């Protein structure tokens, strides 16, 4: 293994410090008894307690969760369909457009997506009456739309790198195309589908800009709430909220990393055992 040069090590230390100093500071000050976020007043968990009493925050969290769950699921279905269409269904008429439409939201600044989607809703409200008010349904539509493009990226990447001959083998053995999809393709890419869902879930949970354009009065998602509060200044209950989120994400990432590493190690052992066995 090549030795890592001192330059690289220095850059890495600085880089990780850059990434983590504010997060660590956030967590530390979430336990600050004092209201001020600049002066340490002693250790206390009062802000966490307050968090769970704050119905505004709890409602917003619940809304964000519902939104994320539903939009992630629908986005995964749509995104997987599009991924399969783009990679496996050959050159159909309008393929380039589909590909472009599923790449565009990824590379457009969110403000453009937000403004254009809002204009659509305002105009359709005028022309066909829907949506009469902006609210959960408009948020859902907007979230699904930009999430599904992320899912498609994950799926197309996985499909392209997969050995397509197993699908041909399934056809050869008598399965019609839809059966091949059900028996072979989807099961084999299922880890990618799960990743896609998680990605869509996180993106929806975290979205600020597009939500701000397409939500209605009284539909505060958690990021909207935080944004409003943050504009007024830094407060300790947001510190507590942030620390909680960091903790949850950290737990999730750690657990999945361990699970993946274990599975990978087991796999390597199996392969080595098979080779050692001989023919």
């Amino acid at each position, binding site marked *: 293994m090549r030795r890592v040069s001192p330059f*690289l090590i220095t850059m890495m230390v600085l880089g990780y410090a850059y990434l983590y100093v504010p997060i660590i500071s*956030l967590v530390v000050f979430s336990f600050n008894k004092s209201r001020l976020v600049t002066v340490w007043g002693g250790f206390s968990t009062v802000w966490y307690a307050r968090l769970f009493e704050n119905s505004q925050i709890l409602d917003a969290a619940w809304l964000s969760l519902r939104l994320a769950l539903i939009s992630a699921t629908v986005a995964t279905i749509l995104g997987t369909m599009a991924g399969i269409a783009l990679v496996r269904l050959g050159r159909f008429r309008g393929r380039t457009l589909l590909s472009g439409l599923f790449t565009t939201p990824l590379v457009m600044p969110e403000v*453009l997506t937000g403004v254009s989607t809002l204009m659509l809703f*305002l105009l359709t409200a005028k022309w066909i009456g829907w949506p009469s008010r902006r609210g959960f349904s408009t948020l859902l539509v907007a979230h699904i739309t930009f999430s599904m493009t992320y899912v498609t990226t994950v799926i197309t990447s996985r499909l*392209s790198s997969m050995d*397509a001959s197993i699908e041909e083998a399934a056809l050869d053995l008598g399965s019609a195309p839809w059966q091949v999809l059900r028996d072979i393709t989807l099961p084999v890419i299922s880890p990618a589908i799960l990743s896609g869902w998680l990605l869509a879930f996180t993106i929806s949970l975290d979205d600020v800009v597009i939500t701000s354009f397409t939500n209605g009065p009284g539909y505060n998602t958690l990021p909207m709430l935080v*944004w409003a509060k943050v504009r007024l200044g830094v407060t300790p209950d947001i510190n507590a909220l942030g620390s909680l989120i960091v903790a949850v994400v950290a737990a999730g990432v750690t657990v999945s990393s361990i699970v993946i590493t274990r599975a990978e190690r087991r796999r390597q052992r199996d392969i080595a055992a098979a080779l050692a066995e001989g023919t």
Partner: protein
Amino acid sequence: MKPAAWFDRRGWSDVIIGVPYAWAIAFVLVPIGIIAALSFAEPVMNSPPYMFPKAWPHLSFGSYERLLSDSVYVRSFGVSLLNASIATVLCLLIGYPMALGLTRVSKAANRVLLMLIVLPFWTSFLLRVYAWIGLMGNNSWFNRLLTGLYNSIVPQAWHLGSIQIMYTNFAVIFVVVYSYLPFMILPLYANLEKLDRTLEEAAMDLGSRPYRVFLDVTLPQSIPGIIAGGLLVFIPTAGELVIPGLVGNMSDPMIGAVISEEFGLNHDWPMAAAISVVLLMVLVVPLMVYTRYQSRAQAGGSA
């Protein structure tokens, strides 16, 4: 058109293609079309606040004219693109060594360090920005630390009570780089990690020193990763409005804030639309690079 390889034309393939297609047309293509169309309308005090000219060709270029002539808009574009460029370059300068280091450490260290990059990526963006706001305020411990350091280096006459970080363009770039750094590191790492180490060994065997090996072998091969990471930083940054709104100088706004203002505050839909169209066109060049690169990568993968 030649039928797809082994799917029936009827039935399933139509559904699989059709459903996402319909959704994408309705909610991606049509909105963009509406924006494009609205940019040729005129603002009126009405609801909805736009109107197409009565006379043929029913197109008004007024918004575009104002956009291109008014220095406010032009300057805003300039500031946005400049910030985006600086942020991209900084992300590259900081992120590349980190990605490279990740490929060189031991397997165990790599796993942990990679997790530490992925963690901010999955954590709420807003909260991370917020975390820096806390530190950049004039009374924070971080600021006092920096000021102390600054004062210890600098002569008495230049001493400061605190360093003004918040509400400056510097703050915007600083926080942008912070937020988008993982977006640069991850594609770069993915690219570097797949490179064939034996090429570097061959170069060394032929007499090149490490820095030359990097310049001649590693760097050229990492260009796809640089492009991918660069685009993932540049394009969103150009249209950023949350970060500038929270930590930037609002008297010198970036283009995202301008669009939002024209739309929400001034109710000038045609203007907002026109700016959006111009922004889209400016970004379309890197956008096409991205799409073509993606499709080439896909074709290479499935060939």
